């Protein structure tokens, strides 16, 4: 369950240059939801064109490869256009007194439960708020950490071809433990080595003969790494 407060309605309020003023003001219109809606609209249009190129019906009149995608694309584009329309023209009013209630209701789909005056709706809010107070430490710090994890993964994937799966994952998980989980470097290296040896090498490679890629280094490759 999501413990986010504000549930996707939080938008970037400041950046340099300040988009709220002057010629950059229009940038404020773009948030994650609007950009996604526009991208999906583009996907829908691409699908329509692609489906036409695939042909809706074959020359002998039977169903072509593009017919079903075409129908899907038409509906997808239409619905996304409606979504974009609502994002452009609708002003969403939020009650700041209880934003959490809305998030929890949304996650659960229990709006009707609240309507029925069951007071356990309030209990859920309190329990969730308690969890947020207790566990969500610092969201900004978390976001920075997320960027580090994603960046490290982008580097890790192509390196599999050069280092081999076992060595690459050993380095990746060690780095995650040292830089993200803040585990002492020697502990991280030793524990990851044990994990890689037992699970990745012993379990996968020797246990179920998993054909993971070897590294380009011939000596390592000889050892199955």
């Amino acid at each position, binding site marked *: *369950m*999501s*413990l986010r407060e504000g*549930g*996707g309605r939080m938008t970037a309020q400041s950046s340099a240059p300040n988009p709220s003023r002057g010629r950059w003001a229009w940038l*404020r*219109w773009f948030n*994650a939801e609007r950009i*996604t809606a526009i991208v999906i609209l583009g996907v829908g249009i691409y699908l329509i064109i*692609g489906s036409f190129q*695939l042909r809706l019906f*074959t020359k002998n009149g*039977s*169903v072509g*490869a593009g*017919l079903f*995608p075409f129908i*899907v694309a038409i*509906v*997808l584009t239409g*619905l996304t256009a*409606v979504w974009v329309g609502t994002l452009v023209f609708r*002003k*969403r*009013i*939020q*009650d700041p*007194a209880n934003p959490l209630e809305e998030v929890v209701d949304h996650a*659960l*789909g229990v709006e009707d*439960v609240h309507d029925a005056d069951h007071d*356990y709706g309030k*209990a*859920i809010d309190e*329990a969730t708020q*308690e*969890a947020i107070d207790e566990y*969500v430490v610092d969201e900004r*710090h*978390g*976001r920075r950490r997320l960027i580090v*994890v*994603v960046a490290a*993964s*982008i580097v890790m*994937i192509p390196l*599999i071809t050069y280092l081999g*799966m076992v060595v690459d*994952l050993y380095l990746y998980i060690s780095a995650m*433990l040292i830089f*993200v*989980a*803040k585990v002492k470097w020697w502990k991280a290296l030793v524990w990851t080595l044990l994990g890689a040896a037992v*699970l*990745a090498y012993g379990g*996968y490679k020797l246990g179920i003969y*998993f*054909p*993971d*890629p070897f590294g380009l280094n011939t000596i390592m490759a000889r050892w199955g790494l």
Partner: protein
Amino acid sequence: MDVWSGLMDGFVHILTWQNLLWALLGCALGMLTGVIPGFGPAAATSLLLPLAFFVGPVASTVMMAAIYYGSMYGGTITSVLINVPGEVSSVATTLDGYAMTKNGQAGKALAIAAIGSFIGGVIAFVGLVFATNFSSLAVGLGPHEIFAVTVFALSLVIGLTGKSLIKGLIAALLGLFVGFVGLDPVTAAQRFTFGNPNLSDGIDFVIVAIGLIGLAEILESIGQNVIMDFRGNIGPVRLTWNDFKVSMGAIARGTGIGFFYGLLPGSPAAAATLTSYAVEKRVSKHPEMFGKGAIQGVAGPETTNNALGMSNYIPLLTLGIPSSTTMAILLGAFTINGLQPGPQLFAQHADVAWTLIASLFVANIILFIMSMPLVRMWVGILRIPTLILYAATLGFMTIGAFSVRNNIVDVFIMWIAGLAGLLFRKIDLPIAPMALTLVLGPLLEQNFRRALTIEQGSFLGLVNGPVTEVVYGALGLLIVWRIVSAIRTRAKARRKAAAAAVDAPAPTSISV
């Protein structure tokens, strides 16, 4: 094959040491992943789905069923101990489960959850066995009817997922789009591959499921900087006779509620468990104790959750329609091994179908044995810092994604799906419809094309016969009902906003 002999046959298959070992391993792995904070059954089963490639059809269905059960109880542990439900259906458990932990009664809460789950699972199992009779009714369905029923079931699921119907539909259509990528099965034309040979074989459901559900869950938790490890003591894991007596009614009612909700495709599990919680509070002589550690508040929802998990198999096995994300993933595990759940499964692979059903019973027993005496071991996992668990899981996911087709590109696709899943969570685009259409897309298109070919391209011919007429009629009513209820909800919200504006003259914030 009649029900009784089929079931006995299933038990004969499952009660071999190999299959029991797979069930045991599945339960252990499910609990291990389910106990990772924030990981529910959907994320846990998606993470472990690649294992289905390495074992045969029987072993993989047995193991996946055990993983499902194990992960459900793993989610219960986190709900009770650290107030973090693995998925929304466990929220009701947190209300009194966590309160019991704060009162030093965590062991008692976990014990009643295990007992309730076991009893609910066994009773629902009996219902599941008898419900398999209905599969024979669906054997005669042709492509027209299968297409209509699939569309109807998908509409139910999509309609009841999330707040926005439009977003649910868009998510479902995006899932279909992902399924189009690759070679067309009839004409062998390249569809939406962008000329990339790596996409010619299509995008595997497993890869997208791991990314969209499992990886996105981890990334979201990392992004929130959520630190959730348990340092307390769970206390004795046993019940007094009085605890048991007080909970029996809740367990009985929870079983009924869970079984009934599980029959309806698309009924949200959270609604079932919250209904159970509400019922227990209503019938209790001490409703004021709810939220402060009432044992019935744990027994009812947990029993409901397990009974629902069992009866969720009924639409899957009789009609081939998954009623939740987890069921869609389990359906994916079937298709990996060339099996198609639904009426034909009993006709063509009766041994697998009955072994699966028997394995649900066996998994229930194994889970009960593993959860009661070994609960301290699983709680021990919660003492490991969450970020260390996440780092190890990321490594495991990478191996899992690669193992599907031994292709690095699949690891990239998993990460793209993971980031997309994270974005979709941020903007409230529901994942469940996408997971369903990813699995059901090929079946939907196949039957659509067959039906249209039979009707020589006439779309009106798709509504051909009494079954399709009834199904499309029901679909029409569903759409009308959904529109009317949306209008009513919006009108109610407007009235509420107007009333709030009158009560509080201070301006409310407007998000743009």
